[in-house]
């Protein structure tokens, strides 16, 4: 830990404390500190330090207490402290921390995606299928940025099925100049409305959680590499009270990392009522929302939308009031079949859908649905997608 870094932190903290003025309520005590540690360039980890009975417990987001991230955090803290603190490692469980940080917009990985897109224009789809883009795709596959990893997986899938429209959308997206700043958000009340495991360049894909902000109606995505080892990912559905979060403000689909939060498996009826209120009721509104998000972020957005059907027809046709059906994608037959199994007994009143246009036509993967419990009559969210 460099001395200059420590001096800078001490000065900044002292200044913050002065500016905040004296506290007037109760007897405050800081019991938990979350540090975002960059162990080496590009490798970050959250370390939580909790004060219990005068002892500081330090663990990283994997629950490990001897990792390099924990050692770096402790070293920093020791250097920062005026007097020596008693720091020990204990067997207490890890504090709850969020999943991996939002995907960074690192220029290098985006360059790889851009080069891949240009390579497609040069060699064409036919050339790509003959292996002319193998080098570019190999570099893109090696990307550690989850958004680029997902982009690459979708790009390769589009090549495999020769979906020119999707290829053009994905390639255009990485060639156009974009900016996605990271911002802080406080006091969010989120409802996890869907969860899924999607293909990604990383070995075991990407786990995504879709979180509806009950106040604004924005649907955030939180994601992590499926082969990484986060603490717990909790039940689906659930409610999250987020004190502090970082958000990658992608114009098409904001990516969230909750830093301070509590969670509950209880989903209030009002939360489901809010979902219903936010849901599109006709196909044009639904399609309009998808198109707006895709236009804003053609490379990375995979819009999550809510649809409240007016009625159902056999053949899993969810219809709006004008009898126009929402097209279900054949991308995930298990999710559609699960929906069909549920719809055989109960009528889903709302669908959480991921837009997955195919060959220039709207199509949707059902991720979860809202149904009424036969015995209690209460509405609940049922997961469809694995």
């Amino acid at each position, binding site marked *: 830990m460099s001395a200059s870094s420590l001096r800078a932190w001490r000065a900044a903290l002292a200044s913050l404390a002065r500016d905040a003025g004296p506290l007037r309520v109760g007897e405050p005590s800081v019991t938990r500190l979350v540090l975002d540690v960059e162990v080496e360039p590009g490798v970050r980890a959250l370390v939580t330090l909790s004060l219990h009975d005068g002892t500081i417990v330090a663990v990283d987001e994997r*629950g490990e207490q001897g990792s390099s991230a924990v050692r770096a955090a402790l070293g920093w803290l020791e250097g920062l402290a005026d007097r020596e603190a008693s720091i020990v490692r204990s067997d207490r469980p890890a504090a709850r921390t969020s999943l991996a940080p939002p995907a960074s917009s690192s220029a290098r990985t985006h360059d790889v995606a851009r080069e891949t897109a240009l390579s497609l224009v040069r060699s*064409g789809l036919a050339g790509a299928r003959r292996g002319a883009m193998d080098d570019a795709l190999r570099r893109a596959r090696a990307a550690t940025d989850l958004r680029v990893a997902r982009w690459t997986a979708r790009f390769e899938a589009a090549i495999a099925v020769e979906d*020119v429209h999707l290829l053009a959308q994905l390639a255009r997206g990485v*060639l156009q100049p974009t900016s996605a700043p990271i911002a802080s958000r406080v006091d969010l009340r989120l409802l996890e409305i869907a969860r899924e495991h999607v293909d990604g360049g990383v070995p*075991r894909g990407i786990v995504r959680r879709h979180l509806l902000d009950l106040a604004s109606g924005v649907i955030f995505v939180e994601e992590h590499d*499926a082969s990484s080892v986060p603490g717990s990912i909790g*039940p689906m559905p659930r409610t999250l009270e987020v004190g502090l979060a970082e958000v990658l403000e992608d114009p098409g689909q904001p990516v969230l990392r909750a830093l301070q939060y509590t969670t509950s*498996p209880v989903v209030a009826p009002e939360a489901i009522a809010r979902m219903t209120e936010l849901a599109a009721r006709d196909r044009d509104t639904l399609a309009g929302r998808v198109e707006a998000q895709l236009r804003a972020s053609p490379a990375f957005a995979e819009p999550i939308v809510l649809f409240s059907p007016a009625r159902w027809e056999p053949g899993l046709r969810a219809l709006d009031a004008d009898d126009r059906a929402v097209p279900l994608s054949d991308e995930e037959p298990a999710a559609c079949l699960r929906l069909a199994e549920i719809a055989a007994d109960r009528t889903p009143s709302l669908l959480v859908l991921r837009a997955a246009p195919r060959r220039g036509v709207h199509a949707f993967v059902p991720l979860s649905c809202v149904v009424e419990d036969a015995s209690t009559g209460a509405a609940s969210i049922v997961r469809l997608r*694995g």
Partner: protein
Amino acid sequence: MTDLERRLREGTGADDAEIARALSVPANDELGFARALLTAIARDPRREDPGPWKAPEELAARAPVEGGFLHRLHVASGEGERGIDRIGDVQTLLAVVRGGSLRQRRAALGRLAVLGEESEHAIRTRIDDALASLRDEDLALDLGRARARLGIADLAELAAEDALATETFSRLEAEIPRYYEGELERDPLCVLDAETRALLGSRLRSASDRVVAHLTALLEASSAADDVRGARAAWLAAIRTVGDPRLGATLGALLGSSERSVSLDAARALGRIDTASAHASLAEAFRRSNTPADRAVLGGMLGLHGDVTVLPELRETMRAEDPRARLAAVEAIGPIATSEDFEPLASLLGTGSLALDRALVRSLGWLGDARAVRLLRGLRTTDRGPALAVDIDDALRAVRAQMELRGERDVPEGAITPVISRAASPWWARTIAALHVAIAELEARIGMQARALRRLDRAIVRARDLASPWVAKGRIFEARGSSAEALVVFRRAIEIDRAFVERTPHAVRAVARAFLRRAEATSREGRRDVAQGLLDEALSLDLGRVPLPLRQALSREREKLAHEEGT
């Protein structure tokens, strides 16, 4: 397809300058050209009205219907389909419980319980005795519940377990929110002992959605903490046979786990969930998997769903050098094996570990081929430990049950000794075998039937891919009035060369007659379901070369039985 789309398909070419002009970008600006081209192609998606959603066709790859009674037996009756829910014969249902697929066994147990409740004490006792002798991990709870409904045995222990499970689920229902509120330090599902976990796992269907949702959270958690990892693995084992559809999405997600044991345990649990979505999840995982042993496990679970598309690969993997892959394939193939698999399975016995032998015995039990009886009895005399002996007894029960359902009951073992093969034998071997057949037919005609049968066995061993010795042997049994034995050997002939049997008038006539006689005999014994199965099997053959009166007799007998059964 537009010109621009064609450009993206074919790549840059001689007409780039022209296209660049059309797109209003300089021809030498590669990035600008690419952006303009892609923007022009990537328009908003069209809003088309879709037709009804259809599941992929490969998910309908169920077991073939050319087989006997069990292959045609549905769990529930449909239009023109035989269903277990309409079978009224206790003996047939008991045979299905012993020899059917997992779904058939479960349905037959339910039906037996219904029939038992309506029957007199003696019949209930008979059913209870038969069920008490079964050892089936997949059906342990169903067996207990069915026996409880019969009211013969004292099943106070089962009732006590049910009460304990209900009480524990209620406690968990209250504890789970407290855990999330931070009032409990440890996850209430992680602190249960192994016995309680097993008890709850088998009864999860009676748990509330909240408990199941929390369990799915634990199953998906990948915490490095030992207690969470241990609890997750233990819960995955505990829910393996429960078949609760509420676990489907989570288990589907776990198929992609980076931990092999987790993904395979999830597959094993999904194999027992009787839904099309579970089948689809397994099919997708199978498509993605590239490890032979893992593919074999996934293939076996697809087999439990009646998916036969994996059969060729499982046969191939059974010949693998890798003992782990071979064992997995042998374990997997049972539910979908056909008589063609008898010889490969039999030939592997005694060539590997005890685990391999146990898997082979179980698969032979699933297969239900009559030839397995002698083989398994021989193996029973060897001292390979009690576990194998138990497996052999179970397999023998399953084989005999399937023989009974195929109308092959009481067939002497000598009638079915030689194994079959589809490997082509050399021309000279086939010629000699054909000569043997000709001589044997003469011998049979002059009353030397025993000698003729011995000669035919020699012909079968010499040219194992020849159907004619089997046909000749079947005709001898048929002439003796032994239609059950004739049925067994005719089935072998059909398996070896169905076309030969169907296009040879004397062969197909003899086969049709044997099926009809056996159906009449089983019908007289009150086994109408078995008789219907036999007639269905006969009528699935090309009977064009069978004399009209015999054809009509088969059809009328089938109609008569259907009329009597009201199907």
